[in-house]
């Protein structure tokens, strides 16, 4: 059964608004997110609106949720008493709301969000789809609690209705708690305005034998700042973080992907692939951190950027921190241009240069699915996200 939930999330309660404004006032003591950590690629932090308190953060965000009936996916303000207790307990249980100014703003300015709970041993056949549409600046918190032995895919599309020249700010937080033997796949396609700074903090905790899989596709934003972290806390827990970026014009993107291994036989796979056109810039950092408590851990990370713009820049910095001898890890990074040989090959078959470049770029992104081969459904989801957004640049 399909349950469509049209949730408008304006918060009109005046006392709450005042409380928020007060909180926002205090936030300015916190530092802005760290952006200039690249080797040579400089990400422009001025793209984060400085006068945060002067912005209007009235919530005019719509979340259209389509999901199967076994799972609960609902806006925070529609939560029942039991669910409110869950939200209270788990919200910001993984993400530190004082980490920087934006996440603090996120916490202060918004009590909106979506709670998704997957009951024990429930396996959802179809993904829960969420279309998040922002009218202007906005905040969203997604809290996913996957109980023992449950399995679900959440696929989120993030869009912005606003056009025009005004710069905007969107802050998001995603927290996933995957209990024992749960398996959560979180796919996200971000296509907000090219004038908007998009800031996203994502963090998951994987219990014993649990698996957390992230996929993110970024095409929008003047500045994208995204941090994705998985805490592998249970024995045999697994994580996968796949990311694709299709940047053009003057877009800047700064992302980090982190996996912290804190239990035996935990595994991580990370792969990011980016097409960088125009004078866009990307700075990507991956970190696999393996503690002493993780014998038998395995980590793989790779980052590849294809520069298609004459002034495009990319830095990819893979990092391993291993405090245990009994592990297997590999990492690598490539930054390059379209191979003249590939271009000539396709052109010789009748594709004009522009089309040949597009085909090569799309193929480059699509080959991320090599890491989802074992799961046809995930692979198809990733493919459809890449193909749906290819026309937008």
């Amino acid at each position, binding site marked *: 059964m399909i349950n469509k939930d049209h949730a408008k999330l304006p918060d009109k309660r005046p006392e709450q608004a005042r409380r928020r404004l007060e909180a926002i006032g205090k936030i300015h003591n916190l530092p802005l997110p760290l952006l200039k950590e690249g080797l040579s690629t400089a990400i422009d932090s001025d793209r984060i609106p400085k006068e945060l308190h002067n912005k209007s953060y009235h919530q005019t965000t719509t979340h259209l949720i389509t999901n199967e009936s076994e799972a609960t996916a609902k806006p925070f303000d529609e939560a029942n008493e039991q669910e409110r207790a869950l939200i209270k307990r788990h919200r910001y249980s993984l993400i530190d709301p004082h980490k920087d100014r934006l996440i603090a703003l996120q916490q202060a300015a918004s009590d909106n969000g979506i709670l998704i709970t997957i009951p024990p041993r429930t396996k959802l056949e179809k993904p829960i789809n969420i279309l998040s549409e922002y009218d202007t600046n906005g905040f969203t918190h997604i809290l996913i609690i996957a109980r023992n032995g449950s399995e679900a895919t959440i696929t989120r599309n993030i869009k912005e209705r606003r056009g025009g020249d005004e710069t905007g700010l969107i802050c998001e937080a995603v927290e996933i708690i995957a209990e024992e033997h749960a398996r959560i796949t979180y796919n996200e396609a971000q296509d907000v305005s090219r004038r908007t700074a998009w800031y996203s903090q994502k963090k998951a905790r994987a219990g014993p034998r649990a698996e957390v899989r992230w996929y993110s596709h970024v095409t929008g934003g003047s500045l994208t700042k995204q941090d994705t972290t998985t805490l592998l806390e249970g024995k045999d827990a697994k994580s996968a973080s796949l990311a694709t970026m299709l940047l053009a014009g003057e877009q800047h993107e700064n992302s980090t992907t982190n996996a912290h291994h804190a239990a035996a036989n935990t595994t991580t796979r990370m792969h990011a692939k980016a097409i960088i056109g125009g004078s866009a810039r990307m700075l990507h950092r991956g970190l696999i951190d393996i503690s002493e408590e993780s014998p038998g851990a395995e980590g793989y990370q790779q980052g590849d950027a294809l520069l298609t713009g004459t002034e495009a820049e990319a830095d990819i910095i893979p990092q391993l921190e291993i405090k245990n001898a009994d592990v297997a890890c590999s990492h690598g990074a490539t930054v390059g241009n379209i*191979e*003249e*040989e*590939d271009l*000539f*090959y*396709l*052109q*010789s*078959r*009748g*594709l*004009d*240069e522009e089309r*040949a470049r597009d*085909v*090569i770029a*799309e*193929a*480059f*992104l*699509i*080959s991320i*699915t*090599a890491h989802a081969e074992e799961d046809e459904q995930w692979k198809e989801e990733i493919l459809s996200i890449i193909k749906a957004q290819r026309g937008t640049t």
Partner: protein
Amino acid sequence: MTDKLIIKNLHVKAEDKELLKGVNLEVAQGEIVALMGPNGSGKTTLANAVMGRPGYTITKGSITYRGKDLEGLPPDERARLGLFLSFQHPAEIPGLRVDDFLRELRERKKGKKQGIAAFRSYVKSLMDKLDIDQGFLERYLNQGFSGGEKKRMEILQMALLEPSMAILDETDSGLDIDALKAVAAGVEALRSPTVGTLIITHYKRILDYLKPDKVAVLIDGRIVREGGPELVDKLEAEGYAWAGKQ
């Protein structure tokens, strides 16, 4: 005006090195011409120059096809004129599915959309003829293909594109006997009075299947000999040292 491929006193330079030093060669429609020559003599360079590979500059002479001077034309426009090059080392494109790619080629060739079902049955019949497993349709273009599989994929693309002038750069190298027969059958199927073929090869074997009308020998960037099929036997017996002598 003639429909021939005419290479006239062609001098080609790459990275400041003169690789072709005055090549003269003609391939007429309906004709099969074999081009032989030792490693590094410039055979692939010639094929690249005809197809318009960037980095290979014509410093003197010309290449014309169907009365048109090809200099400055991008490779895709040469393809549209009817030229096709089967690569000695085809590129691998991970992420590009063979079926999607072939359908796009066919659509470009035909100038209209191809229904998925109709296209599938069409391409499957071609694959049967070339003895290519249909599982290849779901794979990424040339990724992880064996040498022989890549060559068959080249011939499949040739069959789809129906060129009027095909250059096969060592398409027969590394093929087992069955694959060689399949490739020869593919070329034969395309053969018509309006199609010309230039076969670059090191071996007599393929020329037993596809009788050349003319054989040319390229050594050090120059055509040193031209003759009939009997030249192949002579080369086999005497080697290139003989061909190079005046």
